[in-house]
């Protein structure tokens, strides 16, 4: 019952005119960013984060804005998947498989509206799951000591590397690079300056925003040089705009199942919307069996990934807020945003800053409703925006990114670092090194080192403490399973295919 009261007070904060307006702006901007191929939720949140800070928005308002952008991106990605056959963001890759065939058959309107609906259902279910589970998890996490935290963070990296697919070593390397970048600057325990090369600009560490915008926005621009998707390829004849009751009934169980799976995958630290949508699409394809025509415009193939990517986006807030370990790359960036406000997410947040947490949860419900409302009638406007030529769009992204970086410290040094990270990020991404583990490592680096040192201080250097409590032992076991099991499963699948 206590939870209901908290949630109501959260709605009280989220429904104030400023916060409501921010949720609406965030939803609109998010849909556009998510829709534009190449720009995903991380870019949207990374570019808006410094601006929200520079505008001196209070922390809960800033977080509401960023969360609505995140959710909006998961809604928006489907538009270009369906109409262009180019996924707007990584979570919408699967949506193109059946969405584009549907659009080619003149069912684009139905594909857009049913996917908006399943996105909405996924969001609402996941937000309800959040309300139910987050307080329990937060209470449980209060028992965590430094050793447990260290094990938990290792588990997060294990999830990322294990689920990252075919090149786990590169995911692991990315995480280590991120952790290493986080060690730059003053070590607060000993007063030693590490890896600064004597440069005063680095004494405070590498700026989070510089890293994120460099690695995601700038490198993305360089990657976009290779995309030559013709803007003329867009499908304009979308036919009937709304799905009917029969189509809704057809997708109902798919949507519910996918939302559930998406939420669980989202809660797992490190695993995000991309994995969730791929998993549910495959799952639904298997459930449908021969009766489905997945790949040729099955309506369930649109509903499943969309319900899952929204549910997982919301799910990824759960570990970030309750444990202080983000559940996705985007929530890792949001944790960086909270750091600008000197707020450290974790179990204590629920007691010390309950207003912030619950207004965020309430705003997830509100943003879902706004997104459903704007996404069905405004689809025409969004498709027109999709035709913005790259020669205008790309300089625009670059200019806004630079404004974001500049607004924090107003130095040329930060802008140059942004450019350097852009080039480095480009080469790493071209070589198949994923960026999400890197950013997670960068965000968690300081906390991981501090917890390790604190744990070892308790026992005066005895490493055994890391493997002592039941919680940390189970986390270590889970971490090992996460790394060992997926390659074994892949191996079995490959063998079966050979037989």
């Amino acid at each position, binding site marked *: 019952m206590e939870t209901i009261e908290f949630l109501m007070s959260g709605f009280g904060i989220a429904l104030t005119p400023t916060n409501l307006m921010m949720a609406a702006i965030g939803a609109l901007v998010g849909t556009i960013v998510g829709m534009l191929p190449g720009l995903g939720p991380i870019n949207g949140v990374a570019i808006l984060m410094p601006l929200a800070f520079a505008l001196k928005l209070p922390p809960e308002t800033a977080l509401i804005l960023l969360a609505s952008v995140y959710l909006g991106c998961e809604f928006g990605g489907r538009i270009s998947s369906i109409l262009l056959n180019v996924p707007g963001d990584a979570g919408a890759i699967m949506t193109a498989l059946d969405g584009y065939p549907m659009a080619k058959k003149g069912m684009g309107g139905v594909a857009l509206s049913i996917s908006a609906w399943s996105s909405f259902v996924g969001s609402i279910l996941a937000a309800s799951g959040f309300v139910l589970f987050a307080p329990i998890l937060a209470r449980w996490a209060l028992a965590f000591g430094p050793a447990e935290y260290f094990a938990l963070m290792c588990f997060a990296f294990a999830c990322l590397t294990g689920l990252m697919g075919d090149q786990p070593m*590169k995911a692991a390397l990315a995480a280590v690079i991120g952790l290493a970048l986080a060690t730059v600057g003053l070590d607060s325990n000993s007063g*030693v300056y590490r890896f600064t090369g004597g440069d005063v600009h680095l004494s405070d560490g590498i700026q989070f925003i510089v890293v994120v915008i460099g690695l995601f926005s700038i490198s993305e621009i*360089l990657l976009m*040089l290779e995309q030559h998707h013709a803007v003329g390829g867009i499908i304009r004849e979308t036919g009937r705009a709304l799905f009917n009751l029969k189509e809704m009934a057809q997708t109902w169980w798919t949507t519910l199942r996918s939302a559930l799976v998406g939420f669980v995958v989202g809660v797992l630290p490190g695993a995000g919307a991309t994995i969730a949508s791929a998993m549910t699409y495959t799952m639904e394809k298997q459930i449908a069996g021969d009766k489905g025509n997945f790949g040729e415009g099955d309506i369930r193939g649109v509903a499943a990934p969309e319900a899952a990517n929204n549910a997982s986006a919301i799910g990824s807030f759960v570990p970030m807020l309750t444990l202080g370990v983000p559940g996705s790359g985007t929530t890792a960036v949001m944790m960086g945003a909270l750091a600008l406000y000197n707020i450290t997410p974790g179990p204590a947040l629920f007691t010390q800053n309950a207003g912030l947490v619950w207004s965020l949860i309430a705003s997830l419900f509100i943003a879902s409703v706004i997104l459903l409302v704007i996404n069905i009638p405004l689809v025409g406007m969004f498709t027109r925006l999709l035709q913005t030529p790259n020669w205008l769009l790309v300089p625009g992204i670059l*200019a806004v990114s630079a404004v974001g970086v500049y607004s924090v410290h107003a130095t040329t040094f930060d802008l140059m670092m942004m450019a350097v990270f852009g080039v480095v990020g480009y080469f790493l991404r071209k070589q198949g090194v994923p960026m999400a583990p890197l950013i997670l490592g960068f965000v968690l680096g300081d906390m991981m080192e501090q917890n390790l040192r604190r744990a070892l201080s308790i026992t005066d250097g005895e490493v055994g403490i890391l493997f002592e409590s039941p919680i940390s032992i189970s986390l270590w076991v889970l971490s090992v399973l996460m790394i060992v099991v997926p390659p074994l499963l892949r191996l079995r699948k490959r063998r079966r295919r050979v037989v």
Partner: protein
Amino acid sequence: MSDRILGAACVLVGAGMAWAARDYAAPISYEPVGPKAFPMLLAALLAAGGLWLVLKPSADGSWIRRVPLGALGFAVLAVFVYAFLFQTLGFTLATVVMAVPVGMAFGGSWKQALAGGVGLGLLLYLGFDKLLDVVLPSGALAFILGGR
């Protein structure tokens, strides 16, 4: 750039990290783990991972031949020049200088790119600096736009 080069680079960076961290020590130590251990651990992991890639590379570097290298070099240069000029030349002019080559690399004519750059430079400056109070350098145009 193949996986081998990436791996070798990781080994080198790891070695460099270890060398730079070799005598990080707290002046007054009151904890068993000082400022050196964690960077050393990471350096070792980085080098080990790099070595793995050198021995078992999984992807080749042939993508470099499919990249429009001219356009890429152009764009990278434009980003660096933009970062360099941002403060001295001011946001608006720097944006114009950046938007022309970048816009052209993305298929615009020089007229389109120039018009786009001028439009972006002015609109974003007015929007951020005047409307939203996010202070941007006005640089060489200070006599018209005010500010610094």
